[in-house]
Protein backbone atom coordinates (compact mmCIF):
# COMPACT_ATOMS: atom_id res chain seq x y z
CA UNK A 1 0.00 0.00 0.00
CA UNK A 2 1.38 3.42 -0.93
CA UNK A 3 1.97 6.08 1.69
CA UNK A 4 -0.81 8.23 0.22
CA UNK A 5 -3.44 5.49 0.30
CA UNK A 6 -2.35 4.55 3.81
CA UNK A 7 -2.81 8.18 4.83
CA UNK A 8 -6.27 8.25 3.19
CA UNK A 9 -7.29 5.10 5.06
CA UNK A 10 -5.89 6.57 8.30
CA UNK A 11 -7.90 9.75 7.82
CA UNK A 12 -11.10 7.86 6.98
CA UNK A 13 -10.80 5.93 10.25
CA UNK A 14 -9.94 9.05 12.27
CA UNK A 15 -12.90 10.94 10.83
CA UNK A 16 -15.21 8.47 12.53
CA UNK A 17 -14.11 9.86 15.89
CA UNK A 18 -14.41 13.58 15.20
CA UNK A 19 -17.38 15.92 15.21
CA UNK A 20 -20.11 16.69 17.71
CA UNK A 21 -19.84 18.41 21.06
CA UNK A 22 -17.82 16.37 23.59
CA UNK A 23 -20.29 16.84 26.42
CA UNK A 24 -18.15 14.89 28.88
CA UNK A 25 -15.37 17.45 28.48
CA UNK A 26 -17.85 20.33 28.72
CA UNK A 27 -19.38 18.93 31.92
CA UNK A 28 -15.94 18.20 33.32
CA UNK A 29 -14.62 21.70 32.62
CA UNK A 30 -17.63 23.57 33.98
CA UNK A 31 -18.22 21.50 37.12
CA UNK A 32 -14.54 21.13 37.98
CA UNK A 33 -13.98 24.87 38.28
CA UNK A 34 -17.36 25.36 39.98
CA UNK A 35 -16.38 22.81 42.64
CA UNK A 36 -13.05 24.56 43.15
CA UNK A 37 -14.80 27.90 43.67
CA UNK A 38 -17.25 26.26 46.09
CA UNK A 39 -14.35 25.07 48.26
CA UNK A 40 -13.55 28.61 49.37
CA UNK A 41 -16.80 29.46 51.19
CA UNK A 42 -17.09 25.88 52.40
CA UNK A 43 -13.65 26.03 54.04
CA UNK A 44 -13.92 29.65 55.19
CA UNK A 45 -17.19 28.94 56.99
CA UNK A 46 -15.86 25.75 58.55
CA UNK A 47 -18.33 23.48 56.79
CA UNK A 48 -15.45 21.64 55.14
CA UNK A 49 -12.14 20.92 56.91
CA UNK A 50 -9.12 22.49 55.27
CA UNK A 51 -7.35 19.18 54.76
CA UNK A 52 -10.28 17.90 52.70
CA UNK A 53 -10.42 21.16 50.77
CA UNK A 54 -6.72 20.78 50.01
CA UNK A 55 -7.20 17.29 48.57
CA UNK A 56 -10.19 18.31 46.45
CA UNK A 57 -8.46 21.51 45.29
CA UNK A 58 -5.43 19.51 44.20
CA UNK A 59 -7.65 17.19 42.15
CA UNK A 60 -9.59 20.16 40.73
CA UNK A 61 -6.55 22.09 39.63
CA UNK A 62 -4.88 18.99 38.24
CA UNK A 63 -8.04 18.24 36.21
CA UNK A 64 -8.47 21.83 35.04
CA UNK A 65 -6.19 21.68 32.01
CA UNK A 66 -7.74 19.00 29.83
CA UNK A 67 -11.17 20.53 29.13
CA UNK A 68 -9.42 23.71 28.05
CA UNK A 69 -7.15 21.62 25.90
CA UNK A 70 -10.17 20.50 23.89
CA UNK A 71 -11.20 24.17 23.69
CA UNK A 72 -7.70 25.17 22.55
CA UNK A 73 -8.24 22.91 19.55
CA UNK A 74 -11.83 24.14 19.01
CA UNK A 75 -13.09 20.62 19.57
CA UNK A 76 -16.06 21.77 21.68
CA UNK A 77 -17.22 24.03 18.84
CA UNK A 78 -15.31 24.85 15.66
CA UNK A 79 -13.80 28.27 15.10
CA UNK A 80 -16.25 30.45 13.21
CA UNK A 81 -19.27 28.36 14.20
CA UNK A 82 -22.29 29.71 16.06
CA UNK A 83 -21.11 28.01 19.23
CA UNK A 84 -17.53 29.26 19.13
CA UNK A 85 -18.36 31.47 22.13
CA UNK A 86 -19.26 28.32 24.08
CA UNK A 87 -15.93 26.72 23.18
CA UNK A 88 -14.13 29.84 24.42
CA UNK A 89 -16.25 30.03 27.57
CA UNK A 90 -15.38 26.46 28.57
CA UNK A 91 -11.73 27.07 27.71
CA UNK A 92 -11.43 30.24 29.80
CA UNK A 93 -13.53 28.99 32.70
CA UNK A 94 -11.84 25.63 33.11
CA UNK A 95 -8.35 27.20 33.33
CA UNK A 96 -9.12 29.69 36.11
CA UNK A 97 -7.76 27.50 38.95
CA UNK A 98 -4.56 26.86 37.00
CA UNK A 99 -4.13 30.59 36.22
CA UNK A 100 -3.06 29.81 32.69
CA UNK A 101 -4.93 32.04 30.23
CA UNK A 102 -6.62 30.27 27.31
CA UNK A 103 -5.00 32.39 24.62
CA UNK A 104 -1.56 31.85 26.12
CA UNK A 105 -2.15 28.12 26.37
CA UNK A 106 -3.57 27.92 22.84
CA UNK A 107 -0.87 29.77 20.94
CA UNK A 108 1.98 27.98 22.68
CA UNK A 109 0.25 24.62 22.35
CA UNK A 110 -0.26 25.08 18.62
CA UNK A 111 3.45 25.77 18.26
CA UNK A 112 4.15 22.65 20.26
CA UNK A 113 2.12 20.66 17.73
CA UNK A 114 3.98 22.25 14.82
CA UNK A 115 7.44 21.79 16.29
CA UNK A 116 7.22 18.97 18.82
CA UNK A 117 10.68 17.95 20.10
CA UNK A 118 12.46 20.85 18.40
CA UNK A 119 14.81 22.31 21.04
CA UNK A 120 14.45 25.85 19.71
CA UNK A 121 10.85 25.99 18.51
CA UNK A 122 8.86 23.64 20.76
CA UNK A 123 7.58 25.72 23.72
CA UNK A 124 7.33 22.55 25.80
CA UNK A 125 10.82 21.29 25.09
CA UNK A 126 11.97 22.24 28.58
CA UNK A 127 10.00 19.33 30.04
CA UNK A 128 12.28 16.83 28.27
CA UNK A 129 14.17 14.69 30.75
CA UNK A 130 16.13 11.46 30.94
CA UNK A 131 13.70 9.64 33.24
CA UNK A 132 10.74 10.05 35.63
CA UNK A 133 12.67 11.55 38.55
CA UNK A 134 14.54 13.90 36.26
CA UNK A 135 11.19 14.92 34.71
CA UNK A 136 9.81 15.79 38.14
CA UNK A 137 12.94 17.76 38.96
CA UNK A 138 12.75 19.59 35.62
CA UNK A 139 9.18 20.72 36.21
CA UNK A 140 10.16 22.12 39.63
CA UNK A 141 13.26 23.79 38.18
CA UNK A 142 11.22 25.25 35.32
CA UNK A 143 9.00 27.04 37.83
CA UNK A 144 11.79 28.96 39.53
CA UNK A 145 11.61 32.76 39.13
CA UNK A 146 14.27 33.13 36.45
CA UNK A 147 14.13 29.64 34.98
CA UNK A 148 14.63 29.34 31.25
CA UNK A 149 11.93 26.71 30.79
CA UNK A 150 8.28 26.29 31.61
CA UNK A 151 6.05 29.36 31.58
CA UNK A 152 9.12 31.62 31.42
CA UNK A 153 9.93 29.97 28.10
CA UNK A 154 6.38 30.74 26.96
CA UNK A 155 6.98 34.38 27.84
CA UNK A 156 10.27 34.51 25.93
CA UNK A 157 8.72 32.94 22.84
CA UNK A 158 5.65 35.18 22.94
CA UNK A 159 7.95 38.21 22.90
CA UNK A 160 9.96 36.74 20.03
CA UNK A 161 6.91 35.93 17.89
CA UNK A 162 5.78 39.55 18.02
CA UNK A 163 2.40 38.94 16.35
CA UNK A 164 -0.89 40.49 17.52
CA UNK A 165 -1.99 37.07 18.81
CA UNK A 166 1.29 36.63 20.67
CA UNK A 167 0.99 40.11 22.20
CA UNK A 168 -2.55 39.35 23.38
CA UNK A 169 -1.40 36.04 24.83
CA UNK A 170 1.52 37.74 26.59
CA UNK A 171 -0.74 40.44 28.04
CA UNK A 172 -3.14 37.76 29.27
CA UNK A 173 -0.26 35.94 30.94
CA UNK A 174 0.99 39.11 32.65
CA UNK A 175 -2.49 40.00 33.92
CA UNK A 176 -3.12 36.42 35.05
CA UNK A 177 0.16 36.13 36.94
CA UNK A 178 -0.31 39.54 38.58
CA UNK A 179 -3.86 38.70 39.60
CA UNK A 180 -2.82 35.31 40.98
CA UNK A 181 -0.13 36.71 43.25
CA UNK A 182 -2.25 39.76 44.07
CA UNK A 183 -5.15 37.61 45.22
CA UNK A 184 -2.81 35.33 47.19
CA UNK A 185 -1.30 38.37 48.92
CA UNK A 186 -4.72 39.91 49.61
CA UNK A 187 -5.96 36.68 51.14
CA UNK A 188 -2.79 36.28 53.20
CA UNK A 189 -2.91 39.84 54.50
CA UNK A 190 -6.58 39.35 55.40
CA UNK A 191 -5.77 36.43 57.64
CA UNK A 192 -6.37 33.61 55.16
CA UNK A 193 -2.79 32.73 54.22
CA UNK A 194 -3.09 29.05 55.16
CA UNK A 195 -6.33 28.69 53.23
CA UNK A 196 -4.81 30.44 50.20
CA UNK A 197 -1.75 28.20 50.40
CA UNK A 198 -3.72 24.97 50.68
CA UNK A 199 -6.59 25.74 48.32
CA UNK A 200 -4.63 27.36 45.53
CA UNK A 201 -0.87 27.89 45.82
CA UNK A 202 0.32 24.41 46.80
CA UNK A 203 -2.37 22.49 44.84
CA UNK A 204 -1.41 24.48 41.75
CA UNK A 205 2.24 23.51 42.16
CA UNK A 206 1.31 19.86 42.62
CA UNK A 207 -1.00 20.09 39.60
CA UNK A 208 1.68 21.65 37.42
CA UNK A 209 4.08 18.89 38.41
CA UNK A 210 1.54 16.25 37.41
CA UNK A 211 0.56 18.05 34.20
CA UNK A 212 4.14 18.54 33.12
CA UNK A 213 4.94 14.91 33.88
CA UNK A 214 1.95 13.15 32.35
CA UNK A 215 0.77 15.57 29.71
CA UNK A 216 4.13 16.68 28.40
CA UNK A 217 7.10 14.54 29.39
CA UNK A 218 5.67 11.00 29.41
CA UNK A 219 3.90 11.00 26.03
CA UNK A 220 6.92 12.50 24.24
CA UNK A 221 9.71 10.65 25.97
CA UNK A 222 12.46 10.14 24.79
CA UNK A 223 11.54 13.07 22.56
CA UNK A 224 14.50 12.88 20.21
CA UNK A 225 12.69 12.37 16.91
CA UNK A 226 10.59 14.79 14.93
CA UNK A 227 7.91 14.25 12.35
CA UNK A 228 4.26 13.27 12.18
CA UNK A 229 4.68 9.66 13.23
CA UNK A 230 7.73 10.03 15.43
CA UNK A 231 7.33 13.02 17.73
CA UNK A 232 5.11 11.30 20.26
CA UNK A 233 4.13 7.80 21.25
CA UNK A 234 1.70 5.43 22.88
CA UNK A 235 2.85 4.15 26.25
CA UNK A 236 1.67 1.93 29.06
CA UNK A 237 1.27 4.01 32.19
CA UNK A 238 1.69 2.43 35.62
CA UNK A 239 -1.19 4.65 36.73
CA UNK A 240 -3.50 3.38 33.99
CA UNK A 241 -5.10 5.52 31.32
CA UNK A 242 -7.56 7.49 33.43
CA UNK A 243 -5.07 8.43 36.16
CA UNK A 244 -2.57 9.47 33.54
CA UNK A 245 -5.22 11.74 32.01
CA UNK A 246 -5.70 9.62 28.90
CA UNK A 247 -2.13 10.25 27.80
CA UNK A 248 -1.42 6.62 26.94
CA UNK A 249 -2.92 7.44 23.55
CA UNK A 250 -1.36 10.86 23.06
CA UNK A 251 -0.09 9.80 19.64
CA UNK A 252 -3.69 9.96 18.40
CA UNK A 253 -3.98 13.53 19.59
CA UNK A 254 -0.90 14.63 17.66
CA UNK A 255 -2.07 12.88 14.51
CA UNK A 256 -5.66 14.11 14.76
CA UNK A 257 -5.92 16.95 17.30
CA UNK A 258 -9.68 17.38 16.80
CA UNK A 259 -10.50 13.94 18.21
CA UNK A 260 -11.83 14.57 21.74
CA UNK A 261 -9.77 13.16 24.60
CA UNK A 262 -12.40 10.62 25.62
CA UNK A 263 -12.44 9.11 22.13
CA UNK A 264 -8.68 8.66 21.73
CA UNK A 265 -8.58 5.11 23.19
CA UNK A 266 -11.14 3.85 20.65
CA UNK A 267 -9.45 5.78 17.84
CA UNK A 268 -6.12 4.26 18.86
CA UNK A 269 -7.47 0.72 18.68
CA UNK A 270 -8.93 1.42 15.23
CA UNK A 271 -5.76 3.08 13.94
CA UNK A 272 -3.22 0.79 15.58
CA UNK A 273 -2.52 -1.41 12.49
CA UNK A 274 -1.73 1.67 10.44
CA UNK A 275 0.43 3.14 13.18
CA UNK A 276 2.39 -0.12 13.26
CA UNK A 277 2.90 0.10 9.50
CA UNK A 278 4.13 3.64 9.97
CA UNK A 279 6.71 2.47 12.48
CA UNK A 280 5.32 4.50 15.37
CA UNK A 281 6.56 3.96 18.91
CA UNK A 282 3.63 2.10 20.48
CA UNK A 283 5.43 0.63 23.48
CA UNK A 284 3.69 -2.75 23.00
CA UNK A 285 0.33 -1.15 23.62
Amino acid at each position, binding site marked *: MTSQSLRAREKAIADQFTGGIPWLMVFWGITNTAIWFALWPLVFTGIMPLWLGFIIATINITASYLPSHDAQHYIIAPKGSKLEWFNELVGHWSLIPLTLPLRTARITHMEHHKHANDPLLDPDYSTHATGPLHAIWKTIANRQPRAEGGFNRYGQLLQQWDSPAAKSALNDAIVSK*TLFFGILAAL*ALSGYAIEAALLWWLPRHLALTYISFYLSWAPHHPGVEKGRYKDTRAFKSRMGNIWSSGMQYHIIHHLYPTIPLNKTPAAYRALRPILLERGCNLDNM
Partner: protein
Amino acid sequence: MSVVKSFFFFGPFLFGIAFLAPLVAQVMLRLDLNAPFSLSPLQFGLIIGTVLGLIATYRGKWI
Protein backbone atom coordinates in the same frame (compact mmCIF):
# COMPACT_ATOMS: atom_id res chain seq x y z
CA MET B 1 7.55 45.78 29.08
CA SER B 2 10.63 46.85 31.05
CA VAL B 3 8.40 47.98 33.92
CA VAL B 4 6.68 44.59 33.92
CA LYS B 5 10.04 42.81 33.81
CA SER B 6 11.31 44.86 36.74
CA PHE B 7 8.14 44.10 38.68
CA PHE B 8 8.47 40.38 38.07
CA PHE B 9 12.20 40.51 38.81
CA PHE B 10 11.32 41.55 42.35
CA GLY B 11 8.41 39.11 42.43
CA PRO B 12 10.09 36.68 44.87
CA PHE B 13 10.80 39.51 47.32
CA LEU B 14 7.20 40.75 47.08
CA PHE B 15 5.96 37.17 47.44
CA GLY B 16 8.16 36.82 50.52
CA ILE B 17 6.77 39.83 52.35
CA ALA B 18 3.18 39.76 51.12
CA PHE B 19 2.49 36.02 51.20
CA LEU B 20 5.19 34.05 52.99
CA ALA B 21 5.40 36.43 55.95
CA PRO B 22 1.68 36.27 56.86
CA LEU B 23 1.70 32.54 56.05
CA VAL B 24 4.51 31.87 58.52
CA ALA B 25 2.81 34.06 61.14
CA GLN B 26 -0.57 32.38 60.73
CA VAL B 27 0.94 28.87 60.81
CA MET B 28 2.69 29.77 64.07
CA LEU B 29 -0.55 31.05 65.56
CA ARG B 30 -2.48 27.99 64.35
CA LEU B 31 0.12 25.63 65.86
CA ASP B 32 0.58 27.78 68.96
CA LEU B 33 4.31 28.18 68.34
CA ASN B 34 6.38 30.93 69.92
CA ALA B 35 8.80 33.01 67.90
CA PRO B 36 12.40 33.32 69.20
CA PHE B 37 13.77 36.51 70.81
CA SER B 38 10.29 37.56 71.97
CA LEU B 39 9.32 38.45 68.41
CA SER B 40 5.67 38.48 67.43
CA PRO B 41 4.62 35.86 64.87
CA LEU B 42 4.26 38.56 62.20
CA GLN B 43 7.70 40.03 62.94
CA PHE B 44 9.20 36.55 62.71
CA GLY B 45 7.25 35.87 59.51
CA LEU B 46 8.49 39.12 58.00
CA ILE B 47 12.09 38.20 58.76
CA ILE B 48 11.69 34.75 57.20
CA GLY B 49 9.71 36.04 54.21
CA THR B 50 12.08 38.93 53.55
CA VAL B 51 15.24 36.83 53.83
CA LEU B 52 13.89 34.00 51.66
CA GLY B 53 12.43 36.47 49.16
CA LEU B 54 15.68 38.42 48.86
CA ILE B 55 17.71 35.24 48.44
CA ALA B 56 15.30 33.99 45.74
CA THR B 57 15.41 37.37 44.01
CA TYR B 58 19.19 37.36 44.02
CA ARG B 59 19.57 33.74 42.92
CA GLY B 60 16.58 33.66 40.56
CA LYS B 61 15.39 30.47 42.19
CA TRP B 62 13.83 29.35 45.44
CA ILE B 63 15.52 25.94 45.50
